[in-house]
């Protein structure tokens, strides 16, 4: 009896192993091998509020492509990996996606350090990489296999400068978080300012963990600037706005695209009123003119995303949307081949995405300009287009 059972177990095991070996081959018989795209986002970890909507966007698109029946009879498979906001993990997962799972292109790199690591690897193995991070250095200078979906930090700074011009400021003070993001902003704002005859009279760095920025604000106040610019994300972005108003400064406050979420308004409270910042158009889609080329797409993305994920869409998920749809468009027109995809994307003109209307070229692998951003003002705790 005992022996019989053992032999039976052996047979079942052997059958299971055989089935397991055969299983991956089955879809090939039916409809052609899947076209695989890898996505690596910071679904968990400190940047999860960005990575989560990115992953959910990928899942939503996967479902849509499955319903459409794939491309040319071949199913589309979007693989998702979680980098946990760790550049090393992001790189390892990208390597796994490329070497083990044989993806033909990669979208991801939620934060700039993750994207930098992934971009270097994309250059090594020559695979199209659509970065969803905003650091200017990701696409300046342009690198063969690396494309950038969000508006660059320098583009956001150029848009922000339009506000200082608009309020006829001659001088400005600059408070910034002392890291890549803030320093990027400082250099860009100083450069664009000097082009427009607007002088930087004081710059004050602070740390991401600071809880009170009054000393920086008092120093900036002593320089008596026409406007005060803050380059950070909440909570320090909100603390800065609060401290500026508490210390009685009435100068207009301009902040960065890093405050494009409700957390800023909630934390800054009344001090958020009148703060202006550059942003992608998704935040204010309802107020866009009917002739805006992005309006129908933004409305559809917002609707679809909310239906699929049960929370409001953000610009971050939009960057993942642009990266994936751009790749799919390339595969449709140029075929599922790494080099052909790259060549196609590099010459893509007038591609309407959530981040803007992309006009790629060999010199510009971002393809967006200040026209793709709007200046948004905070009024009565909500976002309105600033004119």
């Amino acid at each position, binding site marked *: 009896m005992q022996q019989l059972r053992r032999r039976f177990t052996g047979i079942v095991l052997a059958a299971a192993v055989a089935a397991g070996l055969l299983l991956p081959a089955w879809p090939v018989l039916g409809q052609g091998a899947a076209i695989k795209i890898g996505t690596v986002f910071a679904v968990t970890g400190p940047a999860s509020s960005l990575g989560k909507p990115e992953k959910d966007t990928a899942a939503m698109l996967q479902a849509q492509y499955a319903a459409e029946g794939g491309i040319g009879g071949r199913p589309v498979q979007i693989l998702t990996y979680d980098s946990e906001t760790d550049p090393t993990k992001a790189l390892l997962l990208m390597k796994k996606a490329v070497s083990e799972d044989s993806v033909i292109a990669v979208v991801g790199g939620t934060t700039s350090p993750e994207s930098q690591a992934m971009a270097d690897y994309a250059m090594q193995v020559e695979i199209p990489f659509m970065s969803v991070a905003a650091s200017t250095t990701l696409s300046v200078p342009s690198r063969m296999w690396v494309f950038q979906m969000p508006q660059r930090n320098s583009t956001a700074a150029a848009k922000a400068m339009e506000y200082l011009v608009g309020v006829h400021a001659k001088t400005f003070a600059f408070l910034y978080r002392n890291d890549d993001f803030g320093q990027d902003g400082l250099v860009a704002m100083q450069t664009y300012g000097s082009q427009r005859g607007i002088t930087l009279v004081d710059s004050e760095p602070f740390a991401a963990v600071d809880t009170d920025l009054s000393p920086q604000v008092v120093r900036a106040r002593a320089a008596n600037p026409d406007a005060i610019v803050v380059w950070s994300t909440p909570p320090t972005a909100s603390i800065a706005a609060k401290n500026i108003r508490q*210390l009685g400064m009435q100068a207009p406050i301009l902040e960065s695209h890093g405050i494009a979420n409700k957390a800023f308004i909630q934390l800054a409270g009344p001090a958020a009123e009148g703060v202006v910042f550059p942003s992608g158009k998704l935040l204010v889609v309802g107020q866009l003119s009917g002739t805006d080329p992005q309006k129908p797409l933004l409305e559809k993305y917002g609707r679809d995303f909310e239906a699929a994920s049960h929370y409001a869409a953000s610009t971050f998920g939009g960057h993942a949307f642009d990266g994936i749809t751009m790749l799919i468009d390339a595969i449709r027109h140029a075929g599922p081949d790494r080099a052909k995809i790259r060549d196609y994307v590099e010459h893509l003109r007038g591609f309407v995405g959530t981040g803007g209307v992309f006009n790629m070229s060999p010199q510009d692998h971002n393809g967006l300009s200040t026209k793709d951003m709007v200046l948004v003002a905070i009024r009565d705790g909500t976002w309105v287009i600033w004119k």
Partner: protein
Amino acid sequence: MLALLPQLLLTGLTVGSIYALVALGFVLIYNVTGFLNFAQGEFSMLGALLCATVLTWHLPLPLAALLAVAAVCLLGAATERLAVEPAYGSHPLTLIIITFGVSMAFRGLALMVWGADPYPLPEFSPGPVLVLLGGVLTRQALWAIGFSIVVVGALFFFFAHTVPGAAVRACADNPFACRLVGISPRRMALFAFTLSAGLGAAAGIVITPITGATYDMGLTLGLKGFVAAVIGGLTNAPAAVVGGYLVGLIEALTTGYLAPGYGSAITFLVLLAVLFLEREGLLHGARRRQA
């Protein structure tokens, strides 16, 4: 240059009151158990985030704060019973490392539950800021400063004039003699953890209207509170509060007069100086317990 001074002093007091409150939690546990609890900052973070969540159930702020503090007290008790208690008798260093682990676990948990976005709490008594000597002080800063003073007073009264307070002090002095007269040092340790968790949570709630609450706020708070407690000698509650204000003032003055961004560096330099000159202050409690 002198024109900056009033504001820098007031900012130093505001930030210092935050550190002072966290430092008190360190001192409380160190006094009873002879080791440092590095999850102290996490208790503040949990108090603040729990309060923000309870507030969304449309409860009044005082009730929400009370519920959050009570919940964190329970967490503090659980920390002592489940993580620390099984390791009693080990080297104090082992116990300290355990509390490090607990703090990382709490931080990871908070990230999963609340995400990375900061949460706000409303000011306790909204209104215009107060102008003092040309500097401004927010009403919430007054709450924080007042709270730290009240807590020091209450702790002083508790330790000096009540029987349970005397029992806690006795445990710190001579655990063996305590057992002989029927005081359980382990029960006192449980009590110290519960109390300092509640204290930390209350501190977190008081400062959140100023700073916002994020899952990782406990790390900085814990470090700065630790520095404040060490400067104060680790066993002396009023001295720890003075240490907290000292750290806050050093940071504000460095940022204002030297260069922004050097605040923390100078603070840690002061810590090193204190440790070199007052090594006894940090270690004698631990050594005494082993003896």
